[in-house]
Each structure stands twice: as structure tokens, then as C-alpha cells.
């Protein structure tokens, strides 16, 4: 059952990611990315990361991607045109990418030879309580720093998107 779920979700994720790359219209790409995020959220659940799965849907799919789609709809930009460099990328990129992927896979296989299994339900400490405890004790300083970062980002976005730019 685990293997079946993993394969189905991995297939959805890979096909959606591929679709992101090959689609010419940004809206199709954005929705493919939402598909990747949704299947990753379920994979997180299989890995026992309940809170992260929910946060993935709320923050990534529900806020960030909605922002993307909002901007795409607002600008109503059509498809893109490809330049000469893109053609080179098409010819040389695919073999190089396959080579890189093979290398990474080899390293992963070599570094993790024990072949540990992921069993659903074996790791149950990914709930909100555990994350919160860790976040507000061990990782308190990064948490506060990140909140300042968010504040800066808000200010930056407002300054940039203002109507009159001096």
C-alpha cells in the first residue's frame, strides 16, 4: 500500500513538474506547480510530517501560489517566445540534465546503502505540538529573525508596488 501510494504520488509530482517546464502559458505552469505541491503534501503525510503537510497546503498552495496566479491574471500576459539560447538548452540541456540526475542518484544510492524503509505511521512526532515545542525553545532565535525578515519583505513589497515610484 505504501509503495503504491508513493509511486502514484511521485508520478503525479514528476508529471506536473515536467508540465511546468514544457507549458508555455504561465497559468498552466502555475497550476502544475500546485499539483506538485499537493502531491508533496501527501508524501509529507506518509513521512509522518503532519504539520508540514498542512503548512505546505496553507502557505505554499493557498497563499504563495494564489499570489502567483493573481499576478498572472492581473498582468494577463500571454505565452512566451523562445530565444536562440533556449534552443541550445533544448539540445544540450536534456543529456546534461540526465547525466547530473544519474550522478545524484548514484551518490544517494552510495551514501545510503542500508536501504532503510519508510513505513507510514512509524514516525509520529511531526504533529503541531512537537514542531511548536522545538520551534519555541531550540529554534527561538531563528524564528524571531525570520519574523523580522517577513516584516522587511512586507515593507519591501509595499514600497515596490506603490503606484507612484519616485
Amino acid at each position, binding site marked *: 500500500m505504501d509503495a503504491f501510494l508513493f509511486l502514484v504520488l511521485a508520478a503525479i509530482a514528476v508529471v506536473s513538474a*515536467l508540465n511546468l517546464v514544457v507549458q508555455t502559458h504561465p497559468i498552466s505552469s502555475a497550476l502544475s506547480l500546485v499539483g506538485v505541491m499537493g502531491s508533496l503534501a501527501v508524501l509529507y503525510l506518509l513521512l509522518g510530517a503532519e504539520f508540514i503537510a498542512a503548512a505546505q497546503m496553507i502557505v505554499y498552495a493557498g497563499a504563495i501560489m494564489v499570489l*502567483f496566479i493573481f499576478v498572472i491574471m492581473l*498582468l494577463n500576459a500571454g505565452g512566451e517566445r523562445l530565444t536562440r539560447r533556449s534552443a541550445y538548452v533544448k539540445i544540450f540541456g536534456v543529456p546534461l540534465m540526465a547525466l547530473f540526475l544519474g550522478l545524484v542518484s548514484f551518490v544517494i544510492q552510495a551514501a545510503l546503502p542500508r536501504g532503510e524503509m519508510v513505513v507510514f505511521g512509524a514516525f509520529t512526532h511531526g504533529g503541531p505540538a512537537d514542531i511548536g515545542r522545538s520551534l519555541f525553545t531550540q529554534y527561538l532565535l531563528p524564528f524571531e529573525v525570520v519574523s523580522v525578515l517577513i516584516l522587511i519583505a512586507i515593507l519591501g513589497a509595499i514600497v*515596490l508596488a506603490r503606484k507612484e515610484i519616485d
Partner: protein
Amino acid sequence: MPASNGVPLNWYLILSAILFCLGIAGFLYRRNVITVFMSIELMLNAVNLSFVTFSYQFKQVDGHIFTFFVMVVAAAEAAVGLAIILTVFKNRQTLQVDDVNSLKN
């Protein structure tokens, strides 16, 4: 070890690698600023999957915390990045990355 009941940890990492490579491909291949930006998000997602997988391997929540921080940074990045894209579009009426090169000419 229940071989029939479970998925090798490697599979998750390889899936993460595949998604990361597709993100790089999109980043290099696409010419639309928004799609390029989305490819970066795809790479971040792939890395998040690795974090959560390693968190499972070590039976600790630290990987989850890192994922959480990556999400927060991605949100901040999206807010600023999309504001920049809006400004660029307002000034140049284009989203092609090749057309935003007035410093070069």
C-alpha cells in the same frame, strides 16, 4: 525489516533529485520571469522533501523546522519578487527576461 510494507528511503531522495533537476531545467529553459520564479519554488519544494525525508531517517523534527523556515523565506521572497515583477511589467510591458537588458545595451 518489513520489505513488502514500506518504501525505501532512497526513493524519496531520488524523487527529490528529479524534481530539483526539473526545477533547474525550467529555470534555464523558460524565458518568462514568472515561470522562472516558479521553477525556483519547485527547487525549494524538492529540497523540502529531502529535509523531511532526512527528518524521518533521524527520527527528529529538525528537518521539519528547516522546511518551515524555507516556506517562510519562500513567502517573503514571493512577496518581494512579485512586486518587482509588477514594477518591471509596469515600466516595460514585458515579462521576457531577455528584454530586461537595458544595462547591457
